[in-house]
Protein backbone atom coordinates (compact mmCIF):
# COMPACT_ATOMS: atom_id res chain seq x y z
CA UNK A 1 0.00 0.00 0.00
CA UNK A 2 1.29 3.38 -0.99
CA UNK A 3 2.06 6.16 1.43
CA UNK A 4 -0.96 8.15 2.59
CA UNK A 5 -0.72 11.72 1.36
CA UNK A 6 -3.97 13.28 2.45
CA UNK A 7 -6.59 12.02 4.80
CA UNK A 8 -10.05 13.36 5.57
CA UNK A 9 -11.44 12.36 8.97
CA UNK A 10 -15.11 12.89 9.68
CA UNK A 11 -15.34 15.99 7.51
CA UNK A 12 -18.51 17.97 8.06
CA UNK A 13 -19.77 21.11 6.40
CA UNK A 14 -23.03 22.65 7.53
CA UNK A 15 -24.25 25.92 6.09
CA UNK A 16 -26.52 28.01 8.30
CA UNK A 17 -29.91 29.03 6.93
CA UNK A 18 -30.83 32.46 8.21
CA UNK A 19 -34.12 34.26 8.18
CA UNK A 20 -35.57 37.61 9.03
CA UNK A 21 -34.17 40.97 9.94
CA UNK A 22 -31.95 39.67 12.72
CA UNK A 23 -30.60 36.87 10.54
CA UNK A 24 -31.53 34.24 13.06
CA UNK A 25 -30.31 30.78 12.19
CA UNK A 26 -33.35 28.64 11.53
CA UNK A 27 -31.64 25.52 10.27
CA UNK A 28 -28.57 23.96 8.76
CA UNK A 29 -27.92 22.66 5.31
CA UNK A 30 -25.94 19.51 5.94
CA UNK A 31 -23.86 19.61 2.78
CA UNK A 32 -21.29 17.15 4.09
CA UNK A 33 -21.96 14.96 7.07
CA UNK A 34 -19.00 13.07 8.45
CA UNK A 35 -17.06 11.65 5.56
CA UNK A 36 -13.66 10.01 5.78
CA UNK A 37 -11.29 9.02 3.01
CA UNK A 38 -7.61 8.71 2.22
CA UNK A 39 -5.65 9.77 -0.82
CA UNK A 40 -2.48 7.77 -1.39
CA UNK A 41 0.66 8.99 -3.12
CA UNK A 42 0.53 8.29 -6.83
CA UNK A 43 -3.02 6.99 -6.78
CA UNK A 44 -6.47 8.29 -7.62
CA UNK A 45 -9.51 8.57 -5.41
CA UNK A 46 -12.81 9.38 -7.09
CA UNK A 47 -15.85 10.90 -5.45
CA UNK A 48 -18.97 9.89 -7.31
CA UNK A 49 -22.56 10.94 -6.85
CA UNK A 50 -25.46 12.99 -8.11
CA UNK A 51 -25.37 16.75 -8.06
CA UNK A 52 -26.01 17.93 -4.53
CA UNK A 53 -24.24 14.98 -2.97
CA UNK A 54 -21.45 17.19 -1.63
CA UNK A 55 -18.62 16.29 -3.98
CA UNK A 56 -17.64 19.81 -4.91
CA UNK A 57 -17.96 21.02 -1.32
CA UNK A 58 -15.50 18.30 -0.33
CA UNK A 59 -13.08 19.51 -2.98
CA UNK A 60 -13.46 23.10 -1.81
CA UNK A 61 -12.71 22.10 1.76
CA UNK A 62 -9.56 20.31 0.68
CA UNK A 63 -8.49 23.36 -1.31
CA UNK A 64 -9.23 25.49 1.77
CA UNK A 65 -11.79 27.54 -0.10
CA UNK A 66 -14.40 26.59 2.51
CA UNK A 67 -13.89 26.20 6.22
CA UNK A 68 -14.66 22.90 7.91
CA UNK A 69 -17.55 22.75 10.33
CA UNK A 70 -15.88 19.85 12.06
CA UNK A 71 -13.44 17.07 11.29
CA UNK A 72 -9.83 17.05 10.31
CA UNK A 73 -7.78 17.10 7.17
CA UNK A 74 -4.42 15.43 7.62
CA UNK A 75 -1.69 16.26 5.17
CA UNK A 76 1.20 13.79 5.39
CA UNK A 77 -0.14 12.79 8.78
CA UNK A 78 -0.32 16.32 10.19
CA UNK A 79 -3.49 18.19 11.05
CA UNK A 80 -3.99 21.10 8.67
CA UNK A 81 -5.82 23.17 11.26
CA UNK A 82 -2.57 23.31 13.23
CA UNK A 83 -0.64 24.71 10.27
CA UNK A 84 0.25 28.38 10.50
CA UNK A 85 -0.83 30.64 7.63
CA UNK A 86 2.77 30.84 6.46
CA UNK A 87 3.13 27.08 6.50
CA UNK A 88 -0.10 26.64 4.54
CA UNK A 89 1.26 29.03 1.93
CA UNK A 90 4.70 27.49 1.76
CA UNK A 91 3.93 23.79 2.18
CA UNK A 92 0.29 23.02 1.49
CA UNK A 93 -0.84 25.39 -1.29
CA UNK A 94 2.01 24.62 -3.69
CA UNK A 95 1.51 20.90 -3.21
CA UNK A 96 -2.24 20.69 -3.60
CA UNK A 97 -3.40 22.23 -6.86
CA UNK A 98 -6.63 21.97 -8.77
CA UNK A 99 -8.23 21.75 -12.18
CA UNK A 100 -11.73 23.09 -12.30
CA UNK A 101 -14.78 21.82 -14.03
CA UNK A 102 -15.42 24.65 -16.41
CA UNK A 103 -12.44 25.63 -18.56
CA UNK A 104 -14.37 28.66 -19.84
CA UNK A 105 -14.53 30.40 -16.48
CA UNK A 106 -11.47 29.13 -14.66
CA UNK A 107 -9.09 31.50 -16.43
CA UNK A 108 -8.82 35.25 -16.23
CA UNK A 109 -9.86 36.44 -19.71
CA UNK A 110 -7.42 39.34 -19.42
CA UNK A 111 -4.31 37.25 -18.97
CA UNK A 112 -2.19 35.55 -21.59
CA UNK A 113 -1.59 31.83 -21.33
CA UNK A 114 2.01 32.34 -20.21
CA UNK A 115 0.82 34.50 -17.31
CA UNK A 116 -1.94 32.07 -16.41
CA UNK A 117 0.39 29.08 -16.32
CA UNK A 118 3.18 31.11 -14.76
CA UNK A 119 1.09 32.63 -11.98
CA UNK A 120 1.72 29.86 -9.42
CA UNK A 121 5.44 30.28 -10.08
CA UNK A 122 5.32 34.05 -9.69
CA UNK A 123 3.37 33.75 -6.45
CA UNK A 124 5.23 30.89 -4.83
CA UNK A 125 8.79 30.94 -6.09
CA UNK A 126 11.57 33.44 -6.44
CA UNK A 127 12.31 32.48 -10.04
CA UNK A 128 13.36 35.21 -12.46
CA UNK A 129 11.17 36.16 -15.40
CA UNK A 130 13.42 34.29 -17.77
CA UNK A 131 13.31 31.11 -15.67
CA UNK A 132 9.54 31.30 -15.42
CA UNK A 133 9.27 31.74 -19.15
CA UNK A 134 11.35 28.65 -19.79
CA UNK A 135 9.48 26.60 -17.21
CA UNK A 136 6.12 27.63 -18.68
CA UNK A 137 7.19 26.54 -22.15
CA UNK A 138 8.39 23.24 -20.71
CA UNK A 139 5.05 22.57 -18.99
CA UNK A 140 3.06 23.61 -22.06
CA UNK A 141 5.07 21.06 -24.00
CA UNK A 142 4.28 18.44 -21.34
CA UNK A 143 0.55 18.90 -21.82
CA UNK A 144 0.80 18.96 -25.60
CA UNK A 145 0.60 22.68 -26.34
CA UNK A 146 2.98 24.63 -28.52
CA UNK A 147 5.28 27.48 -27.56
CA UNK A 148 3.40 29.94 -29.73
CA UNK A 149 0.26 29.30 -27.69
CA UNK A 150 1.90 31.02 -24.73
CA UNK A 151 1.19 34.53 -25.94
CA UNK A 152 -2.48 33.95 -26.75
CA UNK A 153 -5.50 34.68 -24.61
CA UNK A 154 -7.77 31.91 -23.25
CA UNK A 155 -10.68 32.74 -25.55
CA UNK A 156 -8.58 31.79 -28.53
CA UNK A 157 -8.60 28.11 -27.54
CA UNK A 158 -11.04 25.24 -27.77
CA UNK A 159 -12.39 23.59 -24.64
CA UNK A 160 -9.94 20.72 -24.79
CA UNK A 161 -6.99 23.05 -25.22
CA UNK A 162 -8.19 25.21 -22.36
CA UNK A 163 -8.38 22.18 -20.11
CA UNK A 164 -4.80 21.39 -21.10
CA UNK A 165 -3.85 24.91 -20.04
CA UNK A 166 -5.63 24.35 -16.74
CA UNK A 167 -3.71 21.11 -16.25
CA UNK A 168 -0.47 22.91 -17.10
CA UNK A 169 -1.23 25.56 -14.48
CA UNK A 170 -1.95 22.90 -11.88
CA UNK A 171 1.35 21.17 -12.60
CA UNK A 172 3.53 24.27 -12.69
CA UNK A 173 4.71 23.85 -9.11
CA UNK A 174 5.26 20.09 -9.29
CA UNK A 175 2.51 19.41 -6.74
CA UNK A 176 1.96 16.13 -4.92
CA UNK A 177 -1.72 16.18 -5.45
CA UNK A 178 -4.24 17.63 -7.89
CA UNK A 179 -7.94 17.99 -7.20
CA UNK A 180 -9.77 17.42 -10.46
CA UNK A 181 -13.32 18.73 -10.24
CA UNK A 182 -15.16 17.09 -13.12
CA UNK A 183 -12.11 17.49 -15.36
CA UNK A 184 -13.76 16.22 -18.51
CA UNK A 185 -17.47 16.71 -18.05
CA UNK A 186 -17.50 20.11 -19.77
CA UNK A 187 -15.68 18.73 -22.80
CA UNK A 188 -16.89 17.10 -25.98
CA UNK A 189 -17.03 13.35 -25.77
CA UNK A 190 -14.40 13.09 -28.47
CA UNK A 191 -11.84 15.05 -26.43
CA UNK A 192 -12.50 13.42 -23.08
CA UNK A 193 -10.34 10.41 -23.78
CA UNK A 194 -7.43 12.65 -24.80
CA UNK A 195 -7.53 14.59 -21.57
CA UNK A 196 -8.00 11.46 -19.47
CA UNK A 197 -5.01 9.83 -21.12
CA UNK A 198 -2.99 12.98 -20.60
CA UNK A 199 -3.91 13.01 -16.92
CA UNK A 200 -2.97 9.36 -16.53
CA UNK A 201 0.35 9.83 -18.27
CA UNK A 202 1.17 12.80 -16.10
CA UNK A 203 0.24 10.84 -13.01
CA UNK A 204 2.74 8.14 -13.94
CA UNK A 205 5.47 10.61 -14.84
CA UNK A 206 5.21 12.74 -11.71
CA UNK A 207 3.82 10.19 -9.23
CA UNK A 208 0.80 12.47 -8.69
CA UNK A 209 -2.16 11.80 -6.46
CA UNK A 210 -5.53 12.71 -7.86
CA UNK A 211 -8.80 13.42 -6.17
CA UNK A 212 -11.28 13.16 -9.02
CA UNK A 213 -14.82 14.39 -8.74
CA UNK A 214 -17.09 12.90 -11.33
CA UNK A 215 -20.51 11.65 -12.13
CA UNK A 216 -19.58 9.78 -15.24
CA UNK A 217 -18.85 6.22 -14.20
CA UNK A 218 -16.86 5.36 -17.31
CA UNK A 219 -14.46 8.19 -16.50
CA UNK A 220 -14.24 7.05 -12.91
CA UNK A 221 -13.56 3.44 -13.77
CA UNK A 222 -10.83 4.41 -16.18
CA UNK A 223 -9.13 6.94 -13.93
CA UNK A 224 -9.38 5.71 -10.38
CA UNK A 225 -7.79 3.25 -8.04
CA UNK A 226 -10.24 3.92 -5.23
CA UNK A 227 -13.86 5.05 -5.43
CA UNK A 228 -16.13 6.70 -2.89
CA UNK A 229 -19.83 6.78 -3.74
CA UNK A 230 -21.53 9.77 -2.14
CA UNK A 231 -25.18 10.33 -1.42
CA UNK A 232 -26.62 13.34 0.38
CA UNK A 233 -23.41 14.36 2.13
CA UNK A 234 -22.34 10.88 3.12
CA UNK A 235 -20.09 8.24 1.65
CA UNK A 236 -22.24 5.17 1.22
CA UNK A 237 -19.73 2.85 -0.37
CA UNK A 238 -15.97 3.02 -0.43
CA UNK A 239 -13.42 0.70 -1.86
CA UNK A 240 -11.13 -0.29 -4.65
CA UNK A 241 -12.46 0.72 -8.05
CA UNK A 242 -12.54 -2.66 -9.73
CA UNK A 243 -14.06 -4.30 -6.68
CA UNK A 244 -16.89 -1.77 -6.58
CA UNK A 245 -17.65 -1.99 -10.26
CA UNK A 246 -17.52 -5.81 -10.26
CA UNK A 247 -19.35 -6.28 -7.04
CA UNK A 248 -21.45 -3.27 -6.05
CA UNK A 249 -23.20 -3.75 -2.73
CA UNK A 250 -25.08 -0.57 -1.87
CA UNK A 251 -28.43 -0.28 -3.68
CA UNK A 252 -27.50 3.26 -4.71
CA UNK A 253 -24.27 2.12 -6.32
CA UNK A 254 -26.14 -0.62 -8.12
CA UNK A 255 -28.61 1.90 -9.44
CA UNK A 256 -25.83 4.23 -10.60
CA UNK A 257 -24.01 1.46 -12.41
CA UNK A 258 -27.18 0.19 -13.94
CA UNK A 259 -28.07 3.67 -15.14
CA UNK A 260 -24.69 4.19 -16.76
CA UNK A 261 -24.85 1.08 -18.90
CA UNK A 262 -27.78 1.38 -21.20
CA UNK A 263 -28.71 -2.04 -22.52
CA UNK A 264 -31.40 -1.84 -25.15
CA UNK A 265 -33.69 -4.86 -25.20
CA UNK A 266 -33.82 -7.04 -28.33
CA UNK A 267 -37.54 -6.76 -28.54
CA UNK A 268 -38.60 -3.15 -28.86
CA UNK A 269 -41.86 -3.73 -27.04
CA UNK A 270 -40.04 -4.62 -23.85
CA UNK A 271 -39.06 -1.95 -21.38
CA UNK A 272 -35.45 -1.10 -20.77
CA UNK A 273 -34.16 -3.17 -17.88
CA UNK A 274 -32.64 -0.61 -15.58
CA UNK A 275 -32.85 0.25 -11.96
CA UNK A 276 -34.55 3.61 -12.07
CA UNK A 277 -34.65 5.54 -8.83
CA UNK A 278 -37.83 7.24 -7.83
CA UNK A 279 -37.95 10.96 -7.25
CA UNK A 280 -35.12 13.24 -6.35
CA UNK A 281 -32.54 13.48 -3.66
CA UNK A 282 -34.17 14.77 -0.46
CA UNK A 283 -33.19 18.20 0.79
CA UNK A 284 -29.98 18.27 2.82
CA UNK A 285 -31.76 20.81 5.01
CA UNK A 286 -33.83 18.04 6.48
CA UNK A 287 -32.32 14.66 5.69
CA UNK A 288 -34.54 11.61 6.20
CA UNK A 289 -34.11 9.68 9.45
CA UNK A 290 -32.38 6.32 9.46
CA UNK A 291 -30.60 5.47 6.26
CA UNK A 292 -30.59 8.60 4.12
CA UNK A 293 -31.23 6.60 1.01
CA UNK A 294 -34.29 4.70 2.25
CA UNK A 295 -36.79 7.07 0.62
CA UNK A 296 -35.64 6.04 -2.83
CA UNK A 297 -34.20 2.60 -2.17
CA UNK A 298 -35.89 -0.38 -3.78
CA UNK A 299 -34.50 -2.76 -1.19
CA UNK A 300 -35.55 -0.72 1.83
CA UNK A 301 -36.95 -2.54 4.83
CA UNK A 302 -38.48 -1.34 8.10
CA UNK A 303 -35.21 -0.86 9.95
CA UNK A 304 -33.83 1.38 7.20
CA UNK A 305 -36.15 4.23 8.15
CA UNK A 306 -35.32 3.89 11.84
CA UNK A 307 -31.70 3.04 12.46
CA UNK A 308 -28.76 4.83 10.91
CA UNK A 309 -26.51 2.23 9.27
CA UNK A 310 -22.84 2.05 10.20
CA UNK A 311 -19.99 1.95 7.72
CA UNK A 312 -19.02 -1.72 7.61
CA UNK A 313 -15.99 -3.37 6.15
CA UNK A 314 -17.16 -6.31 4.11
CA UNK A 315 -13.81 -7.08 2.56
CA UNK A 316 -10.28 -5.84 2.98
CA UNK A 317 -10.80 -3.33 0.20
CA UNK A 318 -14.53 -2.66 0.39
CA UNK A 319 -16.73 -0.78 2.85
CA UNK A 320 -20.44 -0.12 2.64
CA UNK A 321 -23.03 1.74 4.67
CA UNK A 322 -26.16 -0.38 4.42
CA UNK A 323 -28.22 -2.54 6.79
CA UNK A 324 -28.33 -5.39 4.33
CA UNK A 325 -24.66 -6.27 4.60
CA UNK A 326 -23.81 -7.27 8.11
Amino acid at each position, binding site marked *: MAEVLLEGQNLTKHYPVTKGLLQKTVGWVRAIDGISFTVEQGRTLSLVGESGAGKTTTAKMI*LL*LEKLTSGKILYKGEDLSKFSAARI*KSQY*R*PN*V*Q*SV*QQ*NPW*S*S*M*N*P*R*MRVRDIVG*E*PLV*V*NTKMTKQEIREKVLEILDDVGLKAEHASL*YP*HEFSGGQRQRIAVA*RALALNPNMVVLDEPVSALDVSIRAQIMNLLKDLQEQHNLSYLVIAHNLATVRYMSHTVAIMYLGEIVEYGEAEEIFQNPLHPYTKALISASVLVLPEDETEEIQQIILKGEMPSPLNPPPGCRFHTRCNEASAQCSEAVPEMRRVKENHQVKCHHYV
Partner: protein
Amino acid sequence: MVSIIPNVKEKTRKQYTGVSRGTRIMKNLTLILPVMVLTLMVICAIFANLSWLGLPQYGLAPHDPNKTAPRDKFLPPAFIEGGKSDYLLGTDKLGRDILSRVIHGARVSLSVSLLAIFITAGVGTMLGIFSGYVGGRVDGFLMRIVDVALSFPGLLLAMLLAVAVGPGFWTVVFALSVLGWAFYARLVRGESLRIRQSDFVAQARVNGASPFRIMLRHIFPNVVNSLIVLMTLQVGMMILSEAALSYIGIGITAPQASWGSMVSDGRAELDRAWWISTFPGVAIGLVVMSGNFLGDWIRDKLDPRLRQV
Protein backbone atom coordinates in the same frame (compact mmCIF):
# COMPACT_ATOMS: atom_id res chain seq x y z
CA MET B 1 -2.19 51.40 -52.56
CA VAL B 2 -3.25 50.07 -55.93
CA SER B 3 -4.60 46.58 -55.84
CA ILE B 4 -4.15 44.43 -58.92
CA ILE B 5 -7.67 43.07 -58.84
CA PRO B 6 -9.48 45.50 -56.58
CA ASN B 7 -13.04 44.46 -57.31
CA VAL B 8 -12.51 40.80 -56.68
CA LYS B 9 -10.72 41.53 -53.44
CA GLU B 10 -13.47 43.80 -52.24
CA LYS B 11 -16.11 41.27 -53.07
CA THR B 12 -14.46 38.35 -51.33
CA ARG B 13 -13.75 40.39 -48.26
CA LYS B 14 -17.39 41.31 -47.96
CA GLN B 15 -18.40 37.73 -48.56
CA TYR B 16 -16.10 36.54 -45.81
CA THR B 17 -16.84 39.10 -43.16
CA GLY B 18 -20.37 40.11 -44.10
CA VAL B 19 -19.35 43.70 -43.42
CA SER B 20 -19.85 46.17 -46.23
CA ARG B 21 -17.32 48.76 -47.21
CA GLY B 22 -19.56 51.58 -46.02
CA THR B 23 -19.84 50.05 -42.57
CA ARG B 24 -16.09 49.72 -42.32
CA ILE B 25 -15.56 53.31 -43.40
CA MET B 26 -18.10 54.48 -40.81
CA LYS B 27 -16.34 52.41 -38.19
CA ASN B 28 -13.02 54.03 -39.01
CA LEU B 29 -14.58 57.48 -39.07
CA THR B 30 -15.93 57.05 -35.56
CA LEU B 31 -12.34 56.56 -34.51
CA ILE B 32 -10.55 59.10 -36.71
CA LEU B 33 -12.91 62.04 -36.21
CA PRO B 34 -12.98 61.90 -32.40
CA VAL B 35 -9.21 61.50 -32.26
CA MET B 36 -8.81 64.51 -34.55
CA VAL B 37 -11.22 66.62 -32.50
CA LEU B 38 -9.62 65.73 -29.20
CA THR B 39 -6.10 66.21 -30.54
CA LEU B 40 -7.12 69.63 -31.83
CA MET B 41 -8.59 70.56 -28.47
CA VAL B 42 -5.53 69.39 -26.61
CA ILE B 43 -3.26 71.31 -29.00
CA CYS B 44 -5.43 74.38 -28.43
CA ALA B 45 -5.15 73.92 -24.71
CA ILE B 46 -1.37 73.56 -24.77
CA PHE B 47 -0.48 76.12 -27.41
CA ALA B 48 -3.17 78.73 -26.72
CA ASN B 49 -0.25 80.91 -25.88
CA LEU B 50 3.34 80.15 -25.09
CA SER B 51 3.47 81.80 -21.70
CA TRP B 52 4.89 78.59 -20.28
CA LEU B 53 7.88 79.15 -22.58
CA GLY B 54 8.09 82.77 -21.50
CA LEU B 55 6.55 83.99 -24.77
CA PRO B 56 2.99 85.07 -23.93
CA GLN B 57 2.65 87.09 -27.13
CA TYR B 58 2.90 84.01 -29.40
CA GLY B 59 0.37 81.20 -29.67
CA LEU B 60 -2.65 79.87 -31.51
CA ALA B 61 -5.03 82.45 -30.16
CA PRO B 62 -5.08 85.47 -32.48
CA HIS B 63 -5.88 87.92 -29.67
CA ASP B 64 -5.41 88.30 -25.97
CA PRO B 65 -8.54 86.55 -24.65
CA ASN B 66 -9.11 89.13 -21.94
CA LYS B 67 -8.38 92.29 -23.93
CA THR B 68 -11.55 94.35 -24.29
CA ALA B 69 -12.27 96.50 -27.32
CA PRO B 70 -15.38 98.64 -26.70
CA ARG B 71 -15.56 99.72 -30.34
CA ASP B 72 -15.72 96.12 -31.59
CA LYS B 73 -18.34 94.73 -29.25
CA PHE B 74 -21.09 92.37 -30.51
CA LEU B 75 -19.35 91.83 -33.84
CA PRO B 76 -20.78 88.80 -35.67
CA PRO B 77 -18.51 86.06 -37.03
CA ALA B 78 -16.44 86.96 -40.10
CA PHE B 79 -18.51 84.83 -42.48
CA ILE B 80 -21.66 86.84 -41.71
CA GLU B 81 -22.40 90.29 -43.03
CA GLY B 82 -21.02 92.93 -40.69
CA GLY B 83 -18.26 90.71 -39.37
CA LYS B 84 -14.59 91.61 -39.43
CA SER B 85 -12.00 89.15 -40.73
CA ASP B 86 -9.93 90.05 -37.71
CA TYR B 87 -12.48 88.40 -35.40
CA LEU B 88 -13.17 85.05 -37.04
CA LEU B 89 -15.93 83.97 -34.66
CA GLY B 90 -17.04 87.46 -33.63
CA THR B 91 -16.79 89.26 -30.32
CA ASP B 92 -18.77 89.38 -27.08
CA LYS B 93 -20.34 92.28 -25.22
CA LEU B 94 -16.93 93.61 -24.14
CA GLY B 95 -15.39 93.20 -27.57
CA ARG B 96 -13.28 90.21 -26.60
CA ASP B 97 -12.43 87.76 -29.40
CA ILE B 98 -14.61 84.62 -29.17
CA LEU B 99 -12.11 82.39 -31.00
CA SER B 100 -9.29 83.34 -28.64
CA ARG B 101 -11.51 82.77 -25.66
CA VAL B 102 -12.66 79.37 -26.92
CA ILE B 103 -9.03 78.37 -27.46
CA HIS B 104 -8.04 79.55 -24.00
CA GLY B 105 -11.19 78.06 -22.49
CA ALA B 106 -10.10 74.63 -23.73
CA ARG B 107 -7.16 74.89 -21.37
CA VAL B 108 -9.31 75.50 -18.30
CA SER B 109 -12.21 73.20 -19.17
CA LEU B 110 -10.08 70.25 -20.23
CA SER B 111 -7.63 70.43 -17.36
CA VAL B 112 -10.38 70.82 -14.74
CA SER B 113 -12.39 67.90 -16.08
CA LEU B 114 -9.43 65.59 -16.70
CA LEU B 115 -7.96 66.24 -13.28
CA ALA B 116 -11.30 65.67 -11.59
CA ILE B 117 -11.91 62.51 -13.60
CA PHE B 118 -8.54 60.99 -12.75
CA ILE B 119 -8.89 61.83 -9.07
CA THR B 120 -12.44 60.47 -8.79
CA ALA B 121 -11.74 57.40 -10.90
CA GLY B 122 -8.60 56.57 -8.95
CA VAL B 123 -10.16 56.93 -5.51
CA GLY B 124 -13.47 55.35 -6.53
CA THR B 125 -11.82 52.34 -8.19
CA MET B 126 -9.58 51.57 -5.26
CA LEU B 127 -12.41 51.82 -2.76
CA GLY B 128 -14.78 49.89 -5.02
CA ILE B 129 -12.43 46.97 -5.61
CA PHE B 130 -11.53 46.81 -1.94
CA SER B 131 -15.14 47.03 -0.80
CA GLY B 132 -16.35 44.38 -3.23
CA TYR B 133 -13.49 42.02 -2.54
CA VAL B 134 -13.53 42.23 1.25
CA GLY B 135 -17.33 42.24 1.48
CA GLY B 136 -19.22 41.85 4.71
CA ARG B 137 -19.38 44.72 7.17
CA VAL B 138 -16.60 46.74 5.56
CA ASP B 139 -18.54 46.63 2.32
CA GLY B 140 -21.77 47.60 4.06
CA PHE B 141 -20.10 50.53 5.78
CA LEU B 142 -18.37 51.84 2.65
CA MET B 143 -21.53 51.54 0.58
CA ARG B 144 -23.51 53.57 3.11
CA ILE B 145 -20.90 56.31 2.74
CA VAL B 146 -21.36 56.06 -1.01
CA ASP B 147 -25.12 56.38 -0.57
CA VAL B 148 -24.62 59.54 1.47
CA ALA B 149 -22.22 60.97 -1.11
CA LEU B 150 -24.65 60.22 -3.93
CA SER B 151 -27.61 61.74 -2.15
CA PHE B 152 -25.77 64.92 -1.23
CA PRO B 153 -26.51 67.96 -3.38
CA GLY B 154 -23.20 68.56 -5.11
CA LEU B 155 -23.86 72.19 -5.95
CA LEU B 156 -24.54 73.03 -2.32
CA LEU B 157 -21.31 71.45 -1.21
CA ALA B 158 -19.43 73.30 -3.93
CA MET B 159 -20.93 76.58 -2.73
CA LEU B 160 -19.87 75.83 0.83
CA LEU B 161 -16.39 75.08 -0.40
CA ALA B 162 -16.22 78.24 -2.44
CA VAL B 163 -17.21 80.23 0.63
CA ALA B 164 -14.72 78.42 2.84
CA VAL B 165 -11.74 78.27 0.47
CA GLY B 166 -12.59 80.94 -2.07
CA PRO B 167 -13.36 80.34 -5.74
CA GLY B 168 -10.69 79.33 -8.20
CA PHE B 169 -9.27 76.52 -10.30
CA TRP B 170 -8.42 74.14 -7.46
CA THR B 171 -11.68 74.77 -5.67
CA VAL B 172 -13.53 73.63 -8.80
CA VAL B 173 -11.37 70.51 -9.11
CA PHE B 174 -11.91 69.69 -5.46
CA ALA B 175 -15.64 70.40 -5.57
CA LEU B 176 -16.07 68.10 -8.57
CA SER B 177 -13.98 65.34 -7.00
CA VAL B 178 -15.30 65.35 -3.47
CA LEU B 179 -18.52 63.54 -4.36
CA GLY B 180 -17.74 62.21 -7.83
CA TRP B 181 -15.74 59.21 -6.63
CA ALA B 182 -18.96 57.63 -5.34
CA PHE B 183 -20.20 56.80 -8.88
CA TYR B 184 -17.01 54.88 -9.57
CA ALA B 185 -16.98 53.19 -6.18
CA ARG B 186 -20.48 51.84 -6.63
CA LEU B 187 -19.97 50.68 -10.20
CA VAL B 188 -16.61 49.05 -9.51
CA ARG B 189 -17.80 47.50 -6.26
CA GLY B 190 -20.58 45.68 -8.12
CA GLU B 191 -18.16 44.33 -10.70
CA SER B 192 -15.66 43.41 -8.03
CA LEU B 193 -18.32 41.52 -6.11
CA ARG B 194 -19.20 39.55 -9.22
CA ILE B 195 -15.61 38.79 -10.21
CA ARG B 196 -14.69 37.78 -6.67
CA GLN B 197 -17.09 34.82 -7.03
CA SER B 198 -15.61 33.70 -10.32
CA ASP B 199 -13.75 30.45 -10.81
CA PHE B 200 -10.50 32.12 -11.78
CA VAL B 201 -10.32 34.03 -8.52
CA ALA B 202 -10.87 30.78 -6.60
CA GLN B 203 -8.09 29.30 -8.69
CA ALA B 204 -5.80 32.22 -7.86
CA ARG B 205 -6.43 31.58 -4.18
CA VAL B 206 -5.58 27.91 -4.65
CA ASN B 207 -2.36 29.05 -6.31
CA GLY B 208 -1.59 31.03 -3.19
CA ALA B 209 -2.06 34.55 -4.63
CA SER B 210 -2.36 37.26 -1.98
CA PRO B 211 -5.54 39.37 -1.73
CA PHE B 212 -3.61 42.36 -3.04
CA ARG B 213 -2.44 40.43 -6.07
CA ILE B 214 -5.95 39.14 -6.72
CA MET B 215 -7.34 42.68 -6.61
CA LEU B 216 -4.59 44.06 -8.84
CA ARG B 217 -4.10 41.30 -11.39
CA HIS B 218 -7.47 39.58 -11.50
CA ILE B 219 -10.17 42.03 -10.53
CA PHE B 220 -8.80 45.35 -11.76
CA PRO B 221 -8.18 44.32 -15.40
CA ASN B 222 -11.73 43.00 -15.53
CA VAL B 223 -13.34 46.25 -14.38
CA VAL B 224 -11.35 48.46 -16.76
CA ASN B 225 -14.04 48.20 -19.44
CA SER B 226 -16.83 49.61 -17.35
CA LEU B 227 -14.43 52.12 -15.85
CA ILE B 228 -13.48 53.57 -19.22
CA VAL B 229 -17.10 53.83 -20.29
CA LEU B 230 -17.94 55.74 -17.12
CA MET B 231 -14.86 57.96 -17.41
CA THR B 232 -15.71 59.03 -20.93
CA LEU B 233 -19.30 59.75 -19.95
CA GLN B 234 -17.94 61.81 -17.10
CA VAL B 235 -15.91 64.03 -19.45
CA GLY B 236 -19.15 65.63 -20.52
CA MET B 237 -20.58 65.65 -17.00
CA MET B 238 -17.49 67.30 -15.59
CA ILE B 239 -17.31 70.00 -18.27
CA LEU B 240 -20.99 70.75 -17.72
CA SER B 241 -20.59 70.82 -13.93
CA GLU B 242 -17.63 73.14 -14.28
CA ALA B 243 -19.83 75.37 -16.44
CA ALA B 244 -22.55 75.35 -13.81
CA LEU B 245 -20.12 76.28 -11.06
CA SER B 246 -18.63 79.07 -13.18
CA TYR B 247 -22.13 80.30 -13.98
CA ILE B 248 -23.10 80.81 -10.36
CA GLY B 249 -19.82 82.56 -9.76
CA ILE B 250 -18.03 80.00 -7.63
CA GLY B 251 -16.00 78.44 -10.40
CA ILE B 252 -13.39 79.92 -12.63
CA THR B 253 -13.14 83.61 -11.70
CA ALA B 254 -14.28 86.38 -13.96
CA PRO B 255 -11.96 87.48 -16.74
CA GLN B 256 -10.48 84.02 -17.24
CA ALA B 257 -12.29 82.13 -19.99
CA SER B 258 -13.86 78.73 -19.57
CA TRP B 259 -16.39 77.23 -21.95
CA GLY B 260 -19.03 77.06 -19.27
CA SER B 261 -18.70 80.67 -18.21
CA MET B 262 -18.73 81.77 -21.87
CA VAL B 263 -22.00 79.94 -22.51
CA SER B 264 -23.59 81.62 -19.51
CA ASP B 265 -22.13 85.01 -20.51
CA GLY B 266 -23.90 84.86 -23.84
CA ARG B 267 -27.16 83.59 -22.49
CA ALA B 268 -28.69 87.04 -22.04
CA GLU B 269 -27.74 88.11 -25.58
CA LEU B 270 -28.91 84.94 -27.30
CA ASP B 271 -31.53 86.75 -29.37
CA ARG B 272 -29.16 89.31 -30.91
CA ALA B 273 -25.71 87.71 -30.62
CA TRP B 274 -26.14 83.96 -30.83
CA TRP B 275 -22.45 83.40 -31.52
CA ILE B 276 -21.31 84.24 -28.00
CA SER B 277 -22.89 81.12 -26.51
CA THR B 278 -22.95 78.93 -29.58
CA PHE B 279 -19.23 78.48 -30.30
CA PRO B 280 -18.19 77.45 -26.77
CA GLY B 281 -21.31 75.26 -26.71
CA VAL B 282 -20.23 73.57 -29.93
CA ALA B 283 -16.81 73.00 -28.38
CA ILE B 284 -18.40 71.33 -25.36
CA GLY B 285 -20.58 69.17 -27.59
CA LEU B 286 -17.67 68.11 -29.77
CA VAL B 287 -15.51 67.13 -26.82
CA VAL B 288 -18.28 65.20 -25.10
CA MET B 289 -19.20 63.30 -28.24
CA SER B 290 -15.60 62.59 -29.18
CA GLY B 291 -14.98 61.31 -25.67
CA ASN B 292 -17.89 58.90 -25.98
CA PHE B 293 -16.88 57.57 -29.38
CA LEU B 294 -13.27 57.18 -28.35
CA GLY B 295 -14.33 55.48 -25.10
CA ASP B 296 -16.35 52.95 -27.06
CA TRP B 297 -13.45 52.24 -29.33
CA ILE B 298 -10.99 51.84 -26.47
CA ARG B 299 -13.36 49.49 -24.69
CA ASP B 300 -13.58 47.27 -27.76
CA LYS B 301 -9.80 47.27 -28.12
CA LEU B 302 -9.18 46.48 -24.46
CA ASP B 303 -11.47 43.48 -24.50
CA PRO B 304 -9.47 40.67 -26.08
CA ARG B 305 -12.65 38.83 -26.88
CA LEU B 306 -13.83 41.63 -29.15
CA ARG B 307 -10.44 42.19 -30.74
CA GLN B 308 -10.46 41.32 -34.39
CA VAL B 309 -7.89 38.74 -35.34
